[in-house]
């Protein structure tokens, strides 16, 4: 009878070792289905000596009952009959998160990157005097920006700032160099509105004045900035330009982040995106705020936040930013 005991224990051990409901069901099939191992034992009764037949029959019967009970017991351990079924495909309860405005997303990103590069945020009034917008910035009296047809005058001598450069002047007036600031903020132009122009838009200008600040460092700084914004393979190209308040001046092109410079629809197949203007602060501007232009040099740059956002998110109409259609805002 030793054989019987060993068979029995082997089978029961195997059933007990089931690791899941499915596993236990597999064991039932293995032992108790039509071709299961225990079922097949009944067929072996023919080969048993007549005097042992009865004993063998009892053994197989009781083994079958025992195995079935054990399987059910094991199965019960894996499933909880009191549990209600959960339809995991029903919609979840709706939660709403507050969305960033896309211009703020870009502005925050600029604040972070420039912040890590040591630039502090400076702010200033949006209704400004002509002195801070034009005179202090070496803007000649004939410059078109001074005309009411180009700028939005509130009254005589006061207008909505056309550049945030006024903030730079105010910052330099108040303190002593070195200065390292960015001045993100709204600027205004008397400009007919269309898909690419609005009378109000957002600029982020930067200023760094110190001993030994150079044009090459301006290029390096902007390159580092654009690498942080668009990825480490980004290239920067300077083109000569003219601004009254900087000299030398440049327009800044950045290798297209979409095609990497190969040319695509975004960059109008040029491989470059024009993203801002910059230059070395004009000695006259420094003198206007009492900074010794022989001892100190510095650079300034300006970026259009709407333009960065339009390129980054594929916004084709600049007016969408102030429309505040929630279907637009909820995409960010």
């Amino acid at each position, binding site marked *: 009878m030793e054989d019987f005991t060993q068979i029995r224990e082997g089978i029961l051990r195997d059933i007990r070792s089931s690791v899941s409901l499915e596993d236990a069901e597999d064991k039932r099939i293995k032992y108790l289905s039509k071709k299961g191992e225990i079922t097949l034992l009944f067929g072996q009764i023919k080969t048993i000596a007549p005097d042992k037949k009865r004993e063998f029959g009892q053994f197989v019967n009781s083994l079958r009952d025992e195995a079935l009970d054990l399987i059910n017991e094991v199965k019960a351990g894996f499933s909880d009959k009191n549990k209600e079924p959960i339809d995991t495909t029903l919609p979840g*309860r709706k939660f709403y*998160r507050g969305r960033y*405005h896309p211009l703020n997303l870009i502005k925050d990103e600029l604040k972070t990157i420039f912040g890590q590069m040591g630039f502090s945020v*400076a702010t200033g009034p949006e209704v400004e005097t002509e002195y801070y917008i034009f005179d202090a910035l070496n803007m000649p009296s004939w410059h078109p920006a001074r005309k009411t047809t180009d700028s939005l005058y509130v009254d005589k001598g006061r207008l909505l700032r056309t550049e945030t450069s006024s903030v730079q002047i105010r910052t330099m007036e108040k303190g002593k160099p070195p200065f390292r600031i960015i001045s993100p903020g709204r600027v205004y132009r008397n*400009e007919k509105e269309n898909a690419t122009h609005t009378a109000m838009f957002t600029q982020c200008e930067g200023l760094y004045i*110190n001993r030994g600040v150079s044009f*090459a460092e301006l290029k390096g700084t902007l390159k580092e900035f654009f690498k942080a914004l668009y990825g480490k393979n980004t290239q920067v190209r300077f083109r000569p330009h003219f601004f009254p308040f900087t000299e030398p001046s440049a327009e800044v092109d950045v290798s297209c982040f979409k095609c990497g410079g190969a040319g695509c629809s975004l960059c109008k197949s040029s491989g470059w995106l024009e993203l801002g203007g910059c230059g070395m602060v004009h000695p006259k501007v420094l003198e206007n705020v009492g900074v010794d232009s022989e001892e100190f040099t510095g650079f300034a740059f300006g970026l259009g936040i709407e333009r960065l956002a339009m390129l980054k998110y594929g916004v084709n109409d600049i007016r969408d930013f102030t429309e505040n259609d929630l279907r637009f805002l909820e995409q960010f």
Partner: protein
Amino acid sequence: MKISAGWLKKYTDFEINSENIDDIVHKLAILGFECESVEHIKNSFDNFCVGKVTECIKHPNADKLSLCKVDIGAETLSIVCGAPNVAAGQTVPVALVGAKVKDFVIKKTKIRGEESVGMICAEDELGLSDNHDGIMVLDDSYAAGTPLKELFGFEDTVLELEVTANRADALGYIGFAREFAYLTGTELKIPEVSLTESAEKSSDSVKITVLDPAACPRYCGRVIKNVKVQDSPEWLKQYLTSVGLRPINNVVDITNFVMLETGHPLHAFDLDNVAGKEIIVRKALKDEKFITLDGKGFTLNENILMICDSEKAVALAGVMGGLNSGVTQTTTDVLLEVAYFNLADIRETVKLTNLHTDSSKRFERGIDPNDSEYVINRAASLIRELGGGEILAGTVDVYPEKITEKSIKLRLSRTDKVLGFHIDKDTIISSLNSIGLKTEVEDSDTLSFTIPTFRPDITQEIDLIEEAVRLYGYDRIPEITLSTISLAPVVNREEKTADSIRENLRNLGLSETLSKSMVDGKYCTPFERKPVKIGHPLNEEMNHLRNSIVLSLLQTAGKNIRRKNGRIGIFETGKIFFYDNGDIREINSAAVLLTGKRNFQSWNEADSDYDFYDIKGISEEFLSCFGKNELVFSSGKCPSYFDSDASVSVFKNGSLIGYYGTLDTKTLEIFEIGQPVFCFEFDFAGIGHLSGRDEFRISELSKYPRVIKDISVLMDKYDNAERVAEQIRKTCGKLLTDITVVDIYTGDQIGSDKKSYTFRVVFQSNDRMLKDREIEYLLKNIIEGLKNDLKLEIR
């Protein structure tokens, strides 16, 4: 500025072609001339040839048509022609079958019953000019059958270049070619002028008086007599049309040509129309009237510089000529004007008249006073070449004070300092020399440059540094980052406050909006601050600056409601503007707006709308971000755009910090909003003051269990919860750790003027287990207090 590649090669030895064009465009951009467009112009006149009209008779069925036989060499064609000037014996351009004239293709056809194979063309039909007065008659020397391509065929590339405001010199081919020659390493070629003068002197034919030499430092005049004014030759017409100018007649075209070539505008008068044969340059009188050649009338003032004859004004100096003074087909004697006007005076005229002409554009930026001699002689010799006549001897040149070349010093050490890298001294010298500056070496560090008068933009050392690096190549500037001094960041409190407000409100599920600062004044009226009007607004929808952030939020809400965006939970931070004792003040402000759906229906959620308690909950949770101090609420006392019965002012540390509640329906009407709107407006500066300053310590967590009890109180319909809660707090002291309202009942059972609130109170002690009888005692006290002190009934 449009530059024709075909013409440019006359001034340098470099030819732009399809292989180098991309490279040239790139290099021009790096030199400071960004190319806005590249246009390829090609007209090969396929299926056009020269024909001889051998016979011309009237069309039998139409008065105005002629039947022509036209010999085109290989054969003779029958062509019906409608031009009045067609005649036998003419040599004419013929469009053959298959030729494309304007937008249609020539086919064999019948016109009023007569066969017509081809077409005799007018100039406009060939695209040579706008002239449609009659068919074009060619020189008889051309043989019949000669392809028209040999006469008029051309191919050109036109670059549209951006020239920066400081570079008037580059608004002429010669000036631009000087840069282009440097770029391509070729030689600049300036056309030579050879002048054949007659014995008669210009000065005997015209007298020139400059009354305002400050405004007009130089005025040159030259007379050419017996000129035949006629159409310009093809090359000149083509030169002008390639850059977008319309050919008029040879004299006018030459003045335009020389202006494009030299960058120096010039003007031609019909000498017979110059009264007294005298030119007087003076300022206009106050209210003097003037009509320009395009027929526009202006009322002038004493700042406007005029060119006059002895009787009348004939031109707005440097901007535009007057009616009837220009050169026409009947002109025989021409007075050429080449002047140099003060930049600021020209700008005055442009500002007054808003006339931006090719001439004013150049004078405004500053042209070369010292090329006048060359310019006037170049024009005079061309007039003689193309229109005959006699050039009178000498130029009448009024130039009392010669404008001389200035000399500016450049320190190499300074150049290195500004640029941050070294450009070799010899490189600087040779590049600046090649654009016309002359050098003298002063010492090992200092170079002295003589600045030609065609570069008035170079006035100081920094301008020379810019030119040096521009010619060196902006693409070769190294990118360095060597800032060794690290500056401690300066905290911008306003910006930090705004960021903190934005973050906390986003965390409450609200979305940021950003609206225009400029609004229609009608929206400012509900808000108490006196709005700022814009003196020169873009349009009436933007004639004021916003005096409230709630204003912007309501505009946004209105738009979104109309677009059926159902759930509107938004906030905005930004500047508002107002008058404060006559001064314009601008402050940062922030507000929240809720309207529409709080939830949309789902299988486990009912559809629900925002209500007063949403804005209340948001306000309280938001304010709790800025310190633990108790908030004090007070009904009413809110601005008038809030509903006085459903709004609350909030005080913190004794000062007013904001308002929240339902907006007044009259205000909503102004914004065309017909549904309830809830707002929370708070004091930006006040929040900034609280932020980060409210230090606190955590409260100890009790080890003993809480006991929770509900008490239902029957109250008057108009009574409020806070009165009861206050009484309960007073009764229980610090054993009460929380109190809230868990149920409200109204109904017939208790009468229509009553309501029942169920308060849930939580008791807990930090130092002991509360005993049952302690609780019973507290409850008894609460109930008695409510009954005796507040006269309320307990249910």
